[in-house]
C-alpha cells in the first residue's frame, strides 16, 4: 500500500486551486502597484532614436494588426507609437488586415488624437479592413490608392484627403510601424515591402509569444526596430515620457511570472520526491525478496 505523503497530496491538487493563486497574484499588484524600476533594452532605445531621426512631414504606415485579445499587450505600444509619431509631425496611415484591427486601433487612439488635437484626414487616416492581404500589399507597391479602392474606413475618398498628399506607392513611406500578434503581421510586411526594397525601415511590435522570432529578424536586419511585449511597451512609454497602462501593469506582470516560476519549481520538486520514494520502495522490495 502506497504511503500518502504531502507530496502525493500536492501532486493531486485540484487545478482550480492553481487558478485562484494566479488570479490573486495578478489582482493584488494591479490594485497596489509598487513601481519597480525597469531595465531598458538597447533595442527599444534604438527604436525610439530611429523614429526621432525621421524628418517631420514624413509618411508613416501604421500596421494595425491586432485582435481584441491582444489589447493588453499591443494597446500601450500602439498608443505610445502614435503619440510619438504625431509629436514628431509624421503623417500616419493606419491599415490592418485582421478583421478587427482597424476598428480596435481606432478605439484605442481616438481619445489620444483628440486630446493632442490631431485632425482625421489631415494628420492621420484609417484605411479599414481588407481581405486578401498579399495581393493588396503587392498592388500597393505600384499604386497605393488603387490597392485600397480609394476608400477609407468610413467609405470616404482617400484621394481627396490632405494626409494622402505625396503618397503614390509603398516606397513613399519613411517607415512602417507594425503591431504583430501573428500572421498577418510583421512577416507579411517584410515579405511584401521589405524584401522587394520598397520600405527599408520596419519597426516590429510583436506580442510576447512572437518575440522569439522577432529577435532573430531584428538581428538579421530584416526589421529596423523592435518593441517586444508588455515589457517593451512599458520601456517605450517611459522613453517618450508618457508612462501609462504598460508601466502600471509591470508589477502585476512580475508577480504573474513569479507565480508561474513557483508552479514550475514546486511541481518539479514534488515530482522528484515522489520518484525518489518510489525508487526506495522498489529497492526495499528487491532486498526484501532476495
Amino acid at each position, binding site marked *: 500500500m502506497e504511503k500518502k505523503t504531502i507530496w502525493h497530496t500536492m501532486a493531486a491538487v485540484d487545478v482550480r486551486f492553481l487558478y485562484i493563486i494566479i488570479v490573486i497574484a495578478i489582482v493584488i499588484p494591479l490594485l497596489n502597484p509598487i513601481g519597480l524600476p525597469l531595465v531598458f533594452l538597447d533595442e527599444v532605445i534604438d527604436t525610439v532614436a530611429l523614429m526621432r531621426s525621421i524628418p517631420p512631414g514624413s509618411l508613416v504606415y501604421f500596421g494595425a494588426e491586432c485582435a481584441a*485579445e491582444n489589447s493588453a499587450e499591443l494597446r500601450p505600444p500602439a498608443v505610445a507609437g502614435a503619440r510619438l509619431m504625431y509629436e514628431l509631425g509624421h503623417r500616419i496611415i493606419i491599415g490592418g488586415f485582421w478583421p478587427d484591427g482597424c476598428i480596435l486601433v481606432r478605439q484605442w487612439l481616438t481619445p489620444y488624437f483628440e486630446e493632442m488635437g490631431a485632425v482625421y484626414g489631415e494628420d492621420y487616416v484609417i484605411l479599414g479592413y481588407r481581405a486578401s492581404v498579399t495581393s493588396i500589399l503587392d498592388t500597393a507597391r505600384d499604386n497605393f490608392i488603387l490597392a485600397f479602392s480609394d476608400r477609407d474606413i468610413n467609405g470616404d475618398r482617400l484621394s481627396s484627403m490632405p494626409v494622402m498628399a505625396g503618397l503614390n506607392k509603398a516606397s513613399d513611406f519613411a517607415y512602417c510601424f507594425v503591431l504583430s500578434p*501573428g500572421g498577418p503581421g510583421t512577416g507579411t510586411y517584410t515579405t511584401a515591402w521589405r*524584401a522587394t*526594397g*520598397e520600405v*527599408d525601415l520596419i519597426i516590429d511590435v510583436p506580442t510576447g509569444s*512572437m518575440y*522569439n*522570432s522577432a529577435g532573430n529578424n531584428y538581428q538579421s536586419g530584416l526589421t529596423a526596430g523592435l518593441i517586444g511585449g508588455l515589457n517593451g511597451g512599458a520601456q517605450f512609454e517611459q522613453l517618450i515620457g508618457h508612462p501609462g497602462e504598460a508601466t502600471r501593469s509591470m508589477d502585476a506582470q512580475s508577480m504573474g511570472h513569479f507565480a508561474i516560476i513557483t508552479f514550475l519549481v514546486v511541481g518539479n520538486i514534488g515530482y522528484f520526491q515522489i520518484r525518489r520514494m518510489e525508487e526506495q520502495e522498489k529497492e526495499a522490495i528487491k532486498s526484501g525478496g532476495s
Partner: protein
Amino acid sequence: MDTTALSDALRPFLSSWLRSDSNRLSFTAFIFFAFFITMVIYYWRMSLGEKPMPKLRRIPGLDALDESIGRATEMGRPIVFVPGMSGFSAPTYAALTIMGYVADQVARYDTRMIVCYRYPEVLAVGSSIVQTSYLEQGKRDAFRADDHRFLSSDQFGYASGVCGILQRERAASQHIFGSMAAEAIILAEVGNVVGAIQIAGQTGSLQQPYLFAACDYTLMVEELYVASAYLSQDRLRIGMLAAQDISKSVLIILIVIGAFLMTFGSNFIDRILTLY
C-alpha cells in the same frame, strides 16, 4: 578579388531582364532557384528509374501514429484529428497527408475519427480523403460524414469547439498537425485532462514548448514537411526532399566558408551574394 568591377560589368546585361531592388539579392536568388529547380528535375528523373533513393532519418513521432490508433481501437473511443489552423498552405497539405495515412488505418480497424476543421475548403478536401480511404477498404457505409465538423473560422471559436468535442466524446487520442497558434496550449491541456494520448507536429516553433510538455510525441518544426515523404515512402517525394536537402547543404557550406573568410578579414562571400 574585385567584385565591384564584376558587378558593374553584369549590371547592364542583367538590368534588361532581371528585377532588382535595394537589397541587391536578385541575382543570387535567381541562381539559387535555378539550382534548386535543376535538382528537382534531376531527382524527378532519378525517381522514375531503378536507382535506390536516399534513406530517411527515423522520426519517432510518425512511428507513434500506429500506437495511438491501436489504443483508440482497444478502448473503443474516438481519435480527434486537428488539421491545423490555416487554410490552404504548406503545413495544411502536410497535415492532410498524415490524415490520409491515419484514415487508412482507421478504416481498416473500424475506429472512429472525428476531424475538426477551421476552414470549409479544407473540410471539403479532408472529408473526401477519408471517404476515399473507406472506399478502398470496401466499407462504403462505414464512413460517417457527421464526424467531419466545421467549427468556426474564428481562431478561438474553433479552439473552444475542439475542447467541447474532446470532453464530450472522451477522446482516446488527439492528433494535432499543421500550423498552430496560441490555441495550441488550450487543445493540448484539455487533451491531457481527458487523458488522451497526444501526437503533435507543427511548423511554427513558437508553440512547440507547450506541445513538447503536454503531448506524448512531438514532431519538431520541419519534420512535419517530411511526413508526406516518410509515410508514403514514395520515390518521387523522397527525391524532392533530397533536392531540398542538397540546396540547403549548399547554403550551409556558403555560411561556413563565409564565416571563415570573415575571420581572416574578407567579406568576399557577402559581396558575391549582393552582386545585383
